[in-house]
């Protein structure tokens, strides 16, 4: 049970405080309700590039990192398709420095041309390092494009192509900032050795004066139900054939999401999972195999992905996966196996909640989804799922017409 207090400033900024006196540290986590899904299709990668620019100086403070480091603090940030999250951790007695820094960059960035031109290059190197210069680095570029016809999940957070990042202009930066980086679109979470009363004062002092801004109303085109299987074959300079297949699954808060999560565990979670045992160990068709999803807030993709043992025909490998899927659709999962994946889920949640940093980001995430208290009822939602739910949901999503298949072949 993670406890917290919540209040809202007049400018719409939601503030959550999680007190933990066992630590000498404090975490200040600011989540902005904007991710790669909110980008213009011709200007992709922008939310992530923007995250870099948030460290390039704000209106009153030339450098973000230096004063924080001087206060004994450290920080980082990440951008997903759904959201952008900034967090810093520092000795609790120096927490006001974090309020000073975070509030100034919410007030306004410096919009430095130099920062933009350098970070364009840095992000292009990040793009090259992870998605161009690595074998299989472009798998998700192809898969997203295949699986989504209208929803902006069709591109990766790094962007569709380098040119989108290279062409980012300072006017785009300003427009993006004042549209999305306003108090009314943000959630502030403070966790650690702090008192809610003190945080109220600090929040009012530093964030209170920032203009509210307009609430960003998201209206993204939702992906229509897919009624025909899509397939793509690609040849690349890679040593092994790879197989990737996805099926559309439910959005984050639906019951189907929790069921899908357990299905990925049954099929691909760990060395006793069905796909690993059957296809890697017994049939020796794949040298590695994973089943996962990204935890997307909008309707996401359940994915099975693996590399084939050299010499194995990819159609034969795909057939073997289909057989496993048929099994989970037709035979109710044994109670012991269902208990196993629920136990694993309980364990994952307990380990995740160990650090104040991860508690803070989880609270922010659940608050974004509607209510931070959802964090404390997650396990119950998994516990409620029964063997029939697994069968029913497997039948619902594992339709061939709901699938996208990528054969990524060695040239």
């Amino acid at each position, binding site marked *: 049970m993670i406890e917290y207090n919540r209040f809202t400033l007049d400018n719409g900024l939601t503030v959550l405080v999680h007190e*933990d006196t066992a*630590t*000498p*540290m404090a975490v200040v986590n600011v989540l902005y309700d904007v991710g790669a899904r909110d980008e213009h299709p011709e200007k992709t990668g922008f939310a992530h590039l923007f995250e870099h620019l948030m460290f390039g100086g704000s*209106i*009153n403070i030339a450098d973000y990192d*230096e*004063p924080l*480091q*001087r*206060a*004994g603090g*450290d920080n980082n940030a990440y951008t997903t398709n759904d959201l952008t999250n900034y967090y810093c951790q*520092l*000795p609790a007695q*120096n927490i*006001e*420095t974090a309020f*000073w820094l975070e509030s100034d960059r919410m007030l306004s960035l410096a919009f430095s041309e130099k920062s933009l031109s*350098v*970070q364009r*290059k*840095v*992000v292009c*190197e*990040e793009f*090259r*390092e992870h998605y*161009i*210069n690595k*074998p299989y680095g472009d798998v998700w570029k192809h898969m997203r494009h295949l699986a989504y016809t209208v929803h902006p999940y069709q591109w990766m957070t790094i962007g569709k192509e380098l040119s989108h990042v290279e062409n980012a202009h300072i006017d785009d930066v300003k427009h993006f900032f004042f549209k999305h980086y306003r108090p009314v679109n943000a959630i502030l979470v403070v966790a650690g050795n702090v008192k809610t009363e003190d945080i109220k004062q600090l929040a009012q*002092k530093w964030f209170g*004066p920032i203009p509210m801004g307009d609430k960003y109303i998201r209206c993204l085109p939702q992906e229509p139900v897919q009624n025909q299987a899509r397939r793509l074959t690609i040849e690349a*300079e*890679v*040593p*092994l054939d790879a197989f990737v297949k996805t099926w559309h699954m439910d959005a984050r808060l639906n019951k189907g999401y929790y069921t899908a999560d357990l299905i990925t565990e049954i099929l691909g*979670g*760990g*060395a*006793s999972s069905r796909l690993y045992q059957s296809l*890697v*160990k017994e049939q020796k068709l794949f*040298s*590695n195999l994973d089943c996962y999803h990204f935890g997307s807030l909008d309707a996401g993709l359940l994915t099975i992905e693996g*590399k084939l*043992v*050299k010499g194995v025909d990819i159609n034969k490998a795909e057939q073997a996966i289909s057989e496993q899927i048929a099994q989970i659709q037709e035979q109710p999962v044994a109670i012991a196996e269902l*208990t*196993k994946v629920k136990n*694993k*889920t*309980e*364990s*994952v949640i*307990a*380990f995740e*909640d*160990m*650090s104040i940093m991860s508690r803070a980001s989880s609270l922010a995430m659940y608050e974004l989804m509607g209510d931070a208290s959802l964090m404390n009822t997650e396990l119950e939602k998994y516990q409620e799922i029964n063997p029939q739910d697994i069968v029913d949901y497997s039948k619902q999503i594992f339709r061939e017409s709901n699938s996208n298949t990528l054969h990524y072949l060695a040239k």
Partner: protein
Amino acid sequence: MLNRKIQPTITDAVSFDLKLRTCEQYQLDNTVPVYSMNAGTQDVLMIEWVFKAGNWFEQKNIVAGTTNFLLKNGTSTKTAYQINDHFEFYGAYLNRTCYNETASITLHCLSKHINELLPVVAELITDSIFPEEELTTYQQNQKQKLSVNLKKCDFIANRLIDEYVYGFHHPYGKYTSTLDYDQLNRNELVEFFKRFYAEGHCTIFTAGKIPSDLQSQLNKYFGALPLQQRAIPNIQYNLQSSQEKKHQIINDANGVQGAIRIARPFPNKHHPDYQKTQILNNVFGGFFGSRLMSNIREDKGYTYGIHSYIQNHMGDTAWMISTEAGRDVCEATISEVYKEMEILRNEPIDEDELSLVKNYMLGTVLGDLDGPFQLIARWKNYVLNNLDEQYFYNSVQLIKSTGAEELNELAKKYLNPEEFYELTVI
């Protein structure tokens, strides 16, 4: 009126009185030492069994790593599947890792399940049988994984720079080929297992919310095993550094980036320069605000990240600079690294920058002392390196007291480009 231009008052981390929480120590009946950190609020537990079973002790490449990897793949009464299913049923994670001097089995679980899990861990370290078929599958899959990794410039660079610094016959410098996998045979694993696990030397580390009967449970399952009896072989390796200092490799003619590694030999943790040099390293390339990051990423945009660090070895080690940079700016990146060395040799670090780095380092230490797993990791590092908590207090004291002049002397002593090995892999 709120003045947003001025940083709120801070307490300098150098004024903190940092205390390392003590670690409970006891011995099992067979003298296996146990270190225990009872802390934390979640009902979770970590237990690590550390054996003197690293690649230091193998007579043929990757025998140690393979033995460690296949510990979960079969005993005389359980298949690999049954073993994995058992741990996963209780939501537990059983990982194993092979290092140079040591090799570990690590269990993470909810505290309430520990009594179901300990007997099976004991079974693994007394009765692993390394089935032939498991070995064959492992060989095939590891070779496939290697074939993918060999396409990556950073993977190639990490292997080669270690070879240049330590020599291929040194445990720190050797690496694995397809042929090594082909040449493995089951008997070597069985023998290595018997000598270095079943009859080996073990140290146990536990952390988290420790159940009150854990000591007796550990003693029950591990206290009667024939551990700590045979002497640890005394094996010494000589460094055989490369004659040639500068290397360039084209691994992928179409590569768009180069992996750059620049490294020099550096003494071990017991050397008087070691801890002070950590401060110099932080200024140089040890954190986001370092000079290498500020110059090469934040000013020039040549790379997504550049770091320097002293490799975490028990013996003599290396000081390393590591980055992936755009193919056309690799040379410029290397020359900027040397420029930053030159500045550190020629000019004392100014007080403002030094105090920032010290505060940052001590703030990080404070954060690192938070939570049972971080605490036990620190203790493990001390215990395995024959250090004690005094090392921690010395380190904190040195961060507080070391001055710019001393760091300048260290820069003159260690940051000389002609002593560095340099490698670019495209």
